[in-house]
């Protein structure tokens, strides 16, 4: 009796794995920056550790995900967080307090307030809001959220900038964060 091979059997193993590697490359070029920057914040700016964890994340994605899911954002962030949490659970030593005599030695944060009007900051803005496309938000809500969380402005300061009551800003930003999370975890892409 003639046996018809399934498409999976028929495809040479080599070509199949090459396609997966290519798919991984595409996904890393498209989403690699997002995953790395997320891990940078999780590791509190430790770029060496973030790079190590990002590599571990992508290799796990390569090993366990289907090629068509390599670019699924919420899965990537979820996997990155899982890798980070697993590493922290395994860590036997904890970070300790550093004493400094000079205030100038203090490392600066990832996004100091001085950068608010820096043109290079627009890349971060675009990258972040692209996570929720095609959904759009109220520009004022977006601005309030960005000032509050990206640059650590106080609600009082934002209130004077956008001429809205503090309670309104708080409510609108909370709602926005909640909506963003829902969009991220509910959508496949």
């Amino acid at each position, binding site marked *: 009796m003639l046996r018809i091979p399934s498409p999976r059997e028929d495809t040479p*193993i*080599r070509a199949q*794995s*090459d396609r*997966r*590697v290519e798919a*991984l*490359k595409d996904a*890393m*070029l498209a989403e*690699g*920056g*997002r995953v*790395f*920057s*997320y*891990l*940078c*914040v*999780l590791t509190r700016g430790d*770029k060496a550790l973030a*790079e190590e964890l*990002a*590599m571990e994340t*992508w*290799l796990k994605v*390569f*090993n366990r995900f289907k090629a068509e899911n390599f670019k699924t954002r*919420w899965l990537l*962030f*979820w996997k990155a*967080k*899982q890798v980070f*949490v697993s590493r922290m659970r395994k860590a036997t030593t904890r970070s300790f307090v550093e004493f400094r005599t000079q205030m100038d030695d203090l490392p600066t944060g*990832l*996004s100091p307030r001085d950068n608010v009007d820096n043109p*290079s*900051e627009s*890349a*971060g*803005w675009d*990258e*972040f809001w692209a*996570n929720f496309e095609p959904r759009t938000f109220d520009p004022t809500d977006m601005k309030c*959220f*960005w000032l509050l*969380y*990206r640059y650590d402005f106080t609600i009082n300061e934002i209130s004077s900038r956008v001429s809205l009551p503090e309670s309104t800003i708080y409510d609108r930003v909370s709602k926005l*964060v*909640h909506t*963003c*999370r829902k969009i*991220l*975890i509910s959508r496949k892409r």
Partner: protein
Amino acid sequence: MKKPRSVELDDKDIIRLAKGAGTPLPEGFVERVLEKARKISEEKAAKRRAKNGR
């Protein structure tokens, strides 16, 4: 055996994404990952070939 605690994305993760957005990938990162991925892929292919008796 104790079941490992699950990890979920929460509102704070949205704030983390905003804080880090725009950080560029380290130089040569993609190539390093791809090199390792190819190795893993070759090992898997070798195992499959051995299993199929080829």
